[in-house]
C-alpha cells in the first residue's frame, strides 16, 4: 500500500467511537426465543430446506445437548443463557430476489452506510460481495460474471437448494459437528452464510467477499461458510463484520470450512469488527468461531489472514490440516484489544503429509484493561517427514493494566521435521512516542502510526481494499488508550 493511503487513513481517523453502531429499523421475521428441536424445525422450515439438511441439524443439536461449554480458554464471561437467544431473524422481504430493485431500500441503505455498495454499477471492479444481515443473505453481486468462469458464489441457503450434491459432499468434512461446543451449536442452528466453489483450473478473476452484519436485538448470528477449490483453482476471499451498539451481549458462532485439492490455493482474509462493548465493558459481541482449512491435495495452500479489532470476546483459531504432500498452511494475525475486550486467538497447524510447511505470525496488541492471548498448536504427525513450522508471536502492551499471554503447544512426532517458535513482548516505547511528538505528531496519532508499523508484516498480506480498512480500525480501536 502506498504511503499516501497510509497517511490519509491516519488523517481520517478522528473519534474513538464505534462507527457502525447504528440500528436499521426493519421488520423482522423472528424465531421464538430459545432453543429446542422445534426451533430447529422452525429454522429449517423457514428456509424451505430438504429433509437431509434438517436431519443434519437435528443430529448436531442432539450432540450439542450432551456437551458442556468449554472453559479452557483464557476468557471470563458470565454464563451464556442459550435459551434467552433468538436463533433466527430475517428481514421481511419478498421470497426471491432477482434484481436489486427488489431489495428493501432500508437494507441497501444500511450497507451503504457501512461503505458497502451492493449496486454492481457503483462498485469498484474486482470484488464480488455476498451480504448477510442477521440470519439471511441479502444479495450476492457479480454472480453472472463469476458463472461465466464456472465459479459458484452464492448464499449457503441457495447452495443447499441449487447445489445439494456439493454441499452434501463437503459440509462438515473439515469441521464436523462433533468438533466442539460452538461448532455443534452452529451446525444445529446456522442460518446462512456463503458458499463458494472454484472449478478445476480456474483462478477467480474477482476477489470474493462476504459482509456480515448483526442488526436485530437479542439474536445470535450463526453463519457457515464453505469454500472448495478444485485442482489448480485459486480464490482470494474476504470477510467483514459489524454490529449495532447494544447493552446486552450478542452471540456469534460461525463455522468456516475450506478445502483445497492438488495445486489449489485459497486466501481467506478477515477484518473482524463486531461491536466491542463500551468503555466500561458493557455489551459487545461474543465471537466464538471455528475456522479450519483442509489442504487435501498435494502442493495445495491455505492462508488465513485476520485483523481482529472488535467483539468483547474473541475465541477463534483458524487452522490448517496439511494432508497433501508439500502443502502449505499460513496464519497471519493482528488482534487488538482495548478497554475490557478479551481475545483468545491463534492457530492450529496439523501436519500429515510429507514436506508440509506452515507459518504462524501473530501480533497481539493490548491496551486498557484488556486481555490478549495467543494460543497455538503445531502438531507434526509421524508420516509428515521433512516438515517445517515457523511461529512468531509478538505482543505489544500499551499501558500496564492490560495482559498479554502466549500458549504455544508443540507436538512433533518425527525426527526429520523442524519447528521453530519465537516470541517477544514489548511495550510501546516512550522514546518512540516522544520522537513522534517532537515532530508535531500528537500521541494518539503516534500510537496509530507505531501500531500500524508493528502490524505491517500482517497488514501487507491483506488485499489492498481491506488493508485500508484494517489500518483505520487499528487506529480507531486504540484511541483513548493512553493519557
Amino acid at each position: 500500500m502506498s504511503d499516501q493511503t497510509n497517511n490519509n487513513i491516519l488523517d481520517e481517523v478522528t473519534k474513538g467511537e464505534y462507527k457502525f453502531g447504528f440500528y436499521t429499523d426493519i421488520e423482522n421475521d423472528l424465531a421464538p426465543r430459545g432453543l429446542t428441536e422445534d426451533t430447529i424445525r422452525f429454522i429449517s422450515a423457514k428456509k424451505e430446506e430438504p429433509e437431509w439438511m434438517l436431519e443434519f441439524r437435528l443430529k448436531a443439536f442432539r450432540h450439542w445437548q450432551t456437551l458442556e461449554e468449554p472453559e479452557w480458554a483464557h476468557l471470563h464471561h458470565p454464563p451464556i443463557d442459550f435459551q434467552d437467544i433468538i436463533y433466527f431473524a430475517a428481514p421481511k422481504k419478498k421470497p426471491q430476489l432477482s434484481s436489486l430493485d427488489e431489495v428493501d431500500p432500508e437494507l441497501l441503505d444500511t450497507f451503504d452506510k457501512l461503505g458497502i455498495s451492493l449496486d454492481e454499477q457503483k462498485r469498484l471492479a474486482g470484488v464480488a460481495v455476498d451480504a448477510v444481515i442477521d440470519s439471511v443473505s441479502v444479495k450476492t453481486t457479480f454472480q453472472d460474471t463469476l458463472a461465466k468462469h464456472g465459479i459458484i458464489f452464492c448464499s449457503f441457503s441457495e447452495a443447499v437448494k441449487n447445489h445439494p450434491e456439493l454441499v452434501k459432499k463437503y459440509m462438515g468434512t473439515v469441521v464436523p459437528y462433533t468438533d466442539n461446543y460452538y461448532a455443534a451449536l452452529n451446525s444445529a442452528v446456522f442460518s446462512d452464510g456463503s458458499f463458494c466453489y472454484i472449478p478445476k483450473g480456474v483462478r477467480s478473476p474477482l476477489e470474493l467477499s462476504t459482509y456480515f452484519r448483526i442488526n436485530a436485538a437479542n439474536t445470535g448470528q450463526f453463519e457457515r461458510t464453505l469454500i472448495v477449490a478444485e485442482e489448480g483453482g485459486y480464490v482470494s476471499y474476504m470477510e467483514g463484520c459489524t454490529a449495532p451498539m447494544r447493552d446486552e451481549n450478542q452471540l456469534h458462532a460461525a463455522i468456516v470450512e475450506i478445502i483445497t485439492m492438488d495445486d489449489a490455493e485459497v486466501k481467506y482474509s478477515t477484518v473482524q469488527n463486531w461491536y466491542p462493548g463500551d468503555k466500561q465493558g458493557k455489551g459487545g459481541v461474543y465471537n466464538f468461531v471455528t475456522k479450519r482449512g483442509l489442504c487435501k491435495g498435494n502442493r495445495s495452500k491455505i492462508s488465513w489472514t485476520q485483523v481482529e479489532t472488535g467483539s468483547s470476546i474473541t475465541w477463534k483459531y483458524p487452522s490448517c490440516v496439511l494432508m497433501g504432500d508439500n502443502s502449505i498452511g499460513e496464519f497471519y494475525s493482528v488482534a487488538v484489544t482495548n478497554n475490557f475486550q478479551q481475545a483468545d486467538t491463534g492457530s492450529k497447524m496439523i501436519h500429515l503429509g510429507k514436506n508440509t510447511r506452515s507459518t504462524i505470525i501473530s501480533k497481539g496488541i493490548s491496551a486498557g484493561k484488556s486481555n490478549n492471548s495467543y494460543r497455538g498448536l503445531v502438531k507434526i504427525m509421524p508420516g509428515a517427514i521433512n516438515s517445517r513450522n515457523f511461529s512468531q508471536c509478538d505482543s505489544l502492551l500499551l499501558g500496564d493494566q492490560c495482559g498479554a499471554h502466549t500458549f504455544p503447544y508443540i507436538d512433533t512426532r518425527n525426527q526429520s521435521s523442524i519447528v521453530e517458535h519465537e516470541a517477544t513482548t514489548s511495550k510501546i516505547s516512550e522514546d518512540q512516542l516522544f520522537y513522534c511528538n517532537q515532530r508535531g505528531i500528537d500521541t494518539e496519532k503516534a500510537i496509530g502510526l507505531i501500531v500500524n508499523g508493528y502490524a505491517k508484516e500482517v497488514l501487507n498480506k491483506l488485499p489492498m481494499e481491506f488493508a485500508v480498512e484494517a489500518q483505520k480500525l487499528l487506529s480507531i480501536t486504540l484511541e483513548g488508550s493512553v493519557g
Partner: protein
Amino acid sequence: MLLNIKNLTVAIEGKEIIKGLNLQVNKGEVHAIMGPNGTGKSTLAAAITGREGYEVTEGEIWYKDQNIIEMDADERANLGIFLSFQYPVEIPGVSMTNFMRTAINAQREYRGLPPMPAGEFLKLMEEKKKLVDIHSKLTNRSVNEGFSGGEKKKNEIFQMALLEPTLAILDETDSGLDIDALRTVAKGVNELRSEENAFVVITHYQRLLEYIVPDFVHVMYDGKIVKSGSKNLALELEDKGYEWLKEHSLA
C-alpha cells in the same frame, strides 16, 4: 527574543540536573553549547522540547513571547521547535515517507492549513534529499531502522530541512559523522539559516564550528552555563580543556 530561558531548574526523578540556567537566543543567531559529558546538555534540550519526565522545578522557558513550560511536546514542535536527537529512535514498519508526511500535515493542521497535496510533498522530499545528500534507499526504509550512526544523524537534518523550524536544537549531530557527512550537515544547516530562525548547536568539537560558525559559544558545567563568549571561546576550550573551566566555575 526567540528563546529566553530564565533561571531554569530541571530534575529527573527528583534529581536536579539543570541548576539555574539562563540562555537568550535571538532570531538569526547560532549558539553553540559545549561542556563535558553528563553536565546536562541533552537534559536542557529535553526540557526545551517538553519531554515527559523532565520536571521543571523552577524558572521559565519563554519562546515567542509565551512561557511554554506547561505545553505538550507536540504543541511545542508545532510552534516551530525542532530537536535533532543525539540518539535518533527507530520506528519499525513506519516508512520515512509516511512518517514525514504525517508530521508535516500535523504541523499544517496546527496552523490551520489543509494537508499538503501528495505531488507537492514528493517534490519537497526530492528537493530536501538533495540538500542533505541523503539517498532514496534510506528514505524508503522504516524510520531509522538499520541506519548507521552517521545515516541517522543525516536523517535528522533531512527532517529538519523538511519541517523548516524556527528554533532548531542540534544535539551532537556531528558525533559519528565522517568528514564528508559533516560538511553536508553543515551545508544543510547553513542553507536553512535565515534572519527568521535560530540554531542551538550542542557539540564536543570545535571542528563543527568551523563549518557552522556560531555567534555565541556557551560552556555548560554541572547544570549551569558557566561561561559565554564568541566563537573564540571554542578554540580556547579546545586548547585548555575542561579542567580550566572547573577552576573557573569554582572561582
